[in-house]
């Protein structure tokens, strides 16, 4: 389903939408092309699916293209992705060869369109070789955490990145020493998407019950992949500490375990740790469970995201938007979203998390204050409308490179 810009007026306020229209007037003469590596699945495709129709609704001639690649190419880029995240990977010269060959094929096949071309993530980064022939302003948008990248892969990638007009990172921690400007554009959530839209209380309660939980007792929830970096075992430890002081249920739910060997292993560890406690509910969610996830978060009393390492942490953004008190690990983008004690609580251990959960479960007023502040924080900083505004500003920035401030006349 594709929303229209005017649908956002009731959510973010008319001033915000009017500001977008004002800005769009200034860049409507520029064609915008997004290029990434997949049309469905993954955060980038999700963001573009929502954003491209809205950009068109603003009158921006926007096109979205996807590069082609075979299994070998995507195998290599998956290894690169993990290596850029700081994972220990073996990188061979053959891998660079596969990357170069696929880039060459896409250079020949992909149509040039935009006056401003936004290339997302490492997979299509080599398309910058087109720029000398087709012109335009080229931006490289990095969605991944490159705070501690594998130097060999980063060095290879940087040869391409340095040729762009500018780069875009999600957080200051991901910035690099580059010869081109680096902008910070945090990711966003769409308040009208199935995962975030308002739901009737009946539906929320019914969904919670469908997953075996009692909607009338306190629910502590972590929604995330079964991944050690999300520390699901730490969450179970916290829950057990909380249970000494307060009745509650625990829900651990997430997708991605089926086709991920490590995910399957972690899921088994979590199930083992849960044992026969009837109040611990572990669910592997199938794809397209967005409305269920929405309802489960809305039906929860406290949300946890006790990550040990995190990129931005959009599950936190989604929970904050739903006015839920969130307890998060003090890592990555969670620190941008949870202003400790104001929009939630940052913790470093299962003990710290348990203490905050008890505090929140005992204090409905605190849950409301923190939840409301979190909602406002997301509204001002992490919604699609802000993301679109940043893209419009980026179009202005590359067109008016060299003037700061850029002063536009009536």
């Amino acid at each position, binding site marked *: 389903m594709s929303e229209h810009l005017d649908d956002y007026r009731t959510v973010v306020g008319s001033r915000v939408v009017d500001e977008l229209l004002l800005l769009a007037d200034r860049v409507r003469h520029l064609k915008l092309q997004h290029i990434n590596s997949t049309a469905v699945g993954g955060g980038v495709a999700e963001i573009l699916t929502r954003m491209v129709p809205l950009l068109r609704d603003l009158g921006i001639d926007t096109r979205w293209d996807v590069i082609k690649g075979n299994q070998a190419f995507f195998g290599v880029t998956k290894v690169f992705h993990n290596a850029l995240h700081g994972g220990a990977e073996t990188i061979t010269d053959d891998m660079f060869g596969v990357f170069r060959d696929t880039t060459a094929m896409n250079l020949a096949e992909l149509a040039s369109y935009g006056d401003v071309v936004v290339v997302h993530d490492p997979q299509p980064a080599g398309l910058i070789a087109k720029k000398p022939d087709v012109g335009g302003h080229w931006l490289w948008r990095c969605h991944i955490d490159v*705070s501690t990248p594998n130097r060999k892969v980063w060095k290879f990638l940087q040869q391409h990145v340095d040729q762009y007009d500018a780069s875009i990172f999600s957080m200051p921690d991901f910035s690099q020493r580059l010869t081109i400007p680096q902008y*910070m554009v945090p990711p966003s959530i769409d308040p009208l998407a199935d995962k975030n839209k308002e739901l009737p209380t009946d539906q929320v309660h019914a969904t919670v019950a469908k997953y075996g939980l009692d909607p009338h007792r306190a629910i502590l929830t972590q929604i995330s992949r079964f991944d050690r970096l999300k520390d699901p075992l730490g969450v179970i430890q916290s829950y057990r500490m909380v249970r000494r002081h307060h009745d509650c249920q625990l829900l651990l739910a997430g997708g991605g375990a089926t086709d991920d060997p490590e995910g399957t292993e972690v899921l088994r560890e979590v199930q083992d740790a849960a044992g026969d406690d009837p109040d611990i509910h572990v669910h592997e969610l199938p794809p397209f469970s967005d409305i269920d996830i929405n309802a489960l978060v809305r039906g929860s009393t406290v949300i946890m995201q006790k990550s040990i390492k995190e990129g931005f942490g959009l599950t936190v953004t989604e929970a904050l938007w739903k006015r839920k008190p969130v307890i998060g690990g003090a890592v990555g983008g969670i620190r941008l979203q949870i202003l400790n004690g*104001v929009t939630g609580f940052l913790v470093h251990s299962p003990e710290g998390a348990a203490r905050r959960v008890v505090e929140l479960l005992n204090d409905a007023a605190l849950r409301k204050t923190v939840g409301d502040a979190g909602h406002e924080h997301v509204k001002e*900083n992490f919604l699609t409308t802000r993301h679109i505004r940043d893209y419009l500003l980026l179009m202005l*920035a590359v067109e008016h490179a060299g003037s700061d*401030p850029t002063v536009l006349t009536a």
Partner: protein
Amino acid sequence: MQRGFYPGLLAPSRNMTNHKSFIFDTELHLVVLTGIKVCSLTDLRAQLAKVPSSSIFFHTHQEYLAHEFQRSPPYYNDFARWVSQAMREEPLAEKLAAIDLLAFTTIRQLRAAIIDTIDTYLDQLSRPSYECRPEEAFHFCRSRSFVLPTGIVAHDVDEFFDKVAHISHASLYFHFFEARLRLRRRTSDFSRWLTDRGRPDLAEAIDALNPYVRTLDELRRDIVALGAGEAAT
């Protein structure tokens, strides 16, 4: 009509137009990452002397616009917040937060005051200063600004106060915070215009409103109240 003065950016004719109407501009920002990060007070001090003035402005002002919902965050100033949270040097954080931004009319003066505060603290420190973990590093940023007219124009003083009630936070922020310090106009655009319109009394009353101790909504409310007082007399 009067818009702002942008040294070196506009043709002189831009500022020679009549001063009868007030054009409300808005300013939008992109955050630029400098790639410079520090993990200790000595490195912070060293980089403070080198980073662009727009970076100093950014780290002392961005919070006023970013977290409007938060009535009183522990520290509005990014340097103070980092010194408190990552360096655990609370006395220095308090001193940095206490720097009165209204006391300066240039970023150069503000930068010197921040550096002086850190130097004084380091001189008196009788133990080695702490070095934080890389994930707690301070990342220098700056803003890239775009100023554009909102289409809202006030033709007289009464209309000005009516319109102020409806402008965006970004517009209010621009005419108040940015105009005074970053664009070196020494006072808010509102006060400047009201003085030109023969109302120095209202200009003075607006100048007396400290924007650093109010949320933007409160600032707007208090400006509108000055206009309402005017209408009532």
